[in-house]
């Protein structure tokens, strides 16, 4: 990850291929959006609501939800903020799989059938697509997700080789969206399992050469609700919108615990 000394200069003028970058007309199409609705203020029963919407080629599921909320039923509730997959607000179950609504293009789904949108599983639903995230963050906090360095503070930065930096690069990408944890069948059972997201964030520090508390985190995850509950189901890896190799990270943590003990 070192800086190449010279960045190539592009030519001042190039021939552009005809129509390059031009998308032509953006096609529009109709979709049926089915949203799992639940509002305990109204009824203890959940229900499906259907919206028929005209959408465009670059639209995402989030745009469809917005359209449903803004033009049809203002009470449809969901979290969202950044709208481009970096804040982790809008993990939800789209056609049965955990996805970020803002990163799922409608045209990549089968629009001939209704698109099903449900809250993520395993966390208490508060209203419609909004779930209580506290249990999720609690597990995150329990793995001590912060750098602990026992040496004395250097005056400048701590040195770290590019290779050492690369070692934990993958797990630094986590946006705490909970798509992984709420896709894990083990987490669904009793909610006690620390869950992949907590392990991913522990991994980020365990393999950071600047950190000295890896052993403490390994001890925490050597719990009966820790890494050993993972059954390598891989739903987490498939759900992660950041492309983090979650199961691999979990395997690395398992092996780190083993190596420490044996």
């Amino acid at each position, binding site marked *: 990850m070192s800086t190449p000394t010279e960045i190539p200069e592009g030519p001042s*003028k190039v021939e552009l291929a005809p129509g390059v970058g031009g998308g032509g007309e953006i096609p529009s199409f109709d979709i049926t959006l089915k949203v799992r609705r639940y509002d305990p203020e109204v009824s203890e029963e959940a229900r499906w609501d259907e919206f028929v919407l005209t959408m465009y080629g670059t639209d995402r599921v989030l745009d469809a939800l917005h359209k449903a909320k803004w033009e049809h039923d203002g009470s449809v509730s969901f979290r969202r903020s950044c709208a481009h997959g970096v804040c982790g607000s809008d993990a939800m179950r789209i056609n049965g799989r955990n996805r970020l609504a803002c990163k799922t293009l409608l045209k990549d789904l089968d629009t001939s059938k209704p698109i099903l949108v449900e809250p993520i599983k395993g966390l208490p639903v508060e209203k419609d697509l909004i779930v209580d995230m506290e249990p999720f963050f609690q597990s995150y906090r329990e793995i001590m997700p912060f750098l602990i360095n026992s040496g004395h503070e250097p005056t400048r930065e701590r040195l770290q080789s590019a290779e050492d930096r690369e070692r934990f690069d993958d797990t630094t990408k986590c946006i705490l969206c909970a798509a992984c944890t709420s896709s894990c069948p083990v987490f669904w059972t009793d909610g006690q399992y620390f869950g992949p997201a907590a392990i991913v964030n522990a991994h980020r520090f365990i393999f950071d050469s600047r950190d000295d508390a890896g052993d403490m985190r390994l001890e925490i995850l050597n719990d009966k609700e820790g890494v050993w509950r993972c059954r390598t189901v891989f739903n987490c890896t498939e759900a992660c919108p950041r492309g983090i190799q979650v199961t691999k990270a979990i395997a690395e943590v398992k092996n780190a615990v083993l190596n420490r003990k044996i």
Partner: protein
Amino acid sequence: MQVHKYDVVIVGAGGAGMRAAIESGQRARTAVLTKLYPTRSHTGAAQGGMCAALANVEEDNWEWHTFDTVKGGDYLVDQDAAEVMAKEAIDAVLDLEKMGLPFNRTPEGKIDQRRFGGHTRDHGKSPVRRACYAADRTGHMILQTLYQNCVKHNVEFYNEYYVLDLLLVEEEALREDGTSYMQKRVAGVVSYDLASGEIHVFQAKSVVFASGGVGKVFKTTSNAHTLTGDGMGIAFRRGIPLEDMEFFQFHPTGLAGLGILLSEAARGEGGILRNADGERFMERYAPTIKDLAPRDIVARSMANEVREGRGCGPNKDYVLLDLTHLEPAHIDAKLPDITEFARTYLGVEPYTEPVPVFPTAHYAMGGIPTNIKAEVLQDNDTVVPGLYAAGEVACVSVHGSNRLGTNSLLDINVFGKRAGIAAAEYAKVAEYVEVPENADQFTIDLIEQVRAANGTERVAQLRKELQDTMDANVQVFRTEQTLNETLNVIASLRERYKNIGIQDRGRRFNLDLLEAVELGFLLDMAQVMTVAALHREESRGGHFREDFPDRNDEKFMKHSMAYKDDLATSESVAGIRLETKPVVFTRYEPMVRKY
């Protein structure tokens, strides 16, 4: 009325809010109120980097950095503030590294640095590598690292608490010269708990505003849906002026049509802009540093290319960002996220195809006026004791009329830290200000009025019309006529706003209601921006008036200060009174800004 009592209350848990919380949390009893889970804040979207003259890869020093900041801001920067920021930048970066931020590294293991627009060596001689970065998710790593340290220090967060009002009391006081004035004091804030729909009052000795930007007044924007200028709006409604609101930065490379940002790092790493003829047009506008010219210049150049018919695509309404001459491996190593955006959202493969881009509303240079201690000013020089602001919501002003890339992540860290320390120190010596009776009444009225609203106008429709107007008339090119037109539109939208209807009348997670409240802030802020833009009859930095295309130092080398003026005195426009505030000069005399 539920009243919580804290020494320090911080509004907002983005970079600035959490940086403040880390400091204040260790010194005083601190609560952080945030409308989003902290890690959802928009600081996480920042990509390119955070600059500091570390001189890790080439010669550099903070004085050059100060100069670039001042020049980049077209000399409207308060130079004392810029100096503070450039000096403290080095520690700000090192602090983050020590907190655990995984910066990219040089072969020697030091923090790596890269080029960014407007950052030069020796007062503009050539580009310099000053931006420290973590791939192209520097903001993400800053946000995560700060949150991690908040967890470490057990900072108390109130997540999904919308602050909707600031409690200020006024008392008569005497100036040094014997004249009397009304001194504001802060008593706390009022918030709305999204989960339960309840109102909570927070009494505090110090309040820090760190609630971020206001990009959602525009349609095409890199900002989150939640960046609705609440903090600025709350302060403004309570009589605090807003400084330099006419200056809004339009980032050159938003994905065409969507506004999603492709970081300037794309150009820092060698990407270039081309028009429909395949020409690298920036060679014409900024012969020395070309594509790495400051954002306002690049954005205007792009808009100009499109205006003059050299735009690309079916509607000739965008230009192209060309990365095809770069090694795919280089692109993957340095720009993985943003190339993924191009692929995901436009279906364009940046290795082989140029990416359609167009300027997108990005950053509010203006905001709540503060001094370099992050203390909020109630006028040009009177501090409101106990009230602080930092980050995008504030205007120190280090960005002047145009912010340099990577200076904002720096700003939030430097002034976030300052605000946190100052707020805690103040709380140690200060007494609580009595919370006024019925402190929550204003907020209850606001909420209940909206909850009961059953008019015929839709919030989403009004917001869309507002955003369309702002995009059409208050974007990179402005004229008196377009601005006046906008004021008329906003005035009619305000009328219609009185007749809105919402459908969700519940208490739990009533986002329908919140969106209506947020629209109220957006309307206020759009109006302030437009009035300020109308007032500034010159072109400077991010503000370009076609009817006044030149910078006019004689008349306008000053900050604008917009006050809410309910009495609608004769000089005020649309209930907004504009005054000015002198710019602080220390080292640099204004020069023509040329790159």
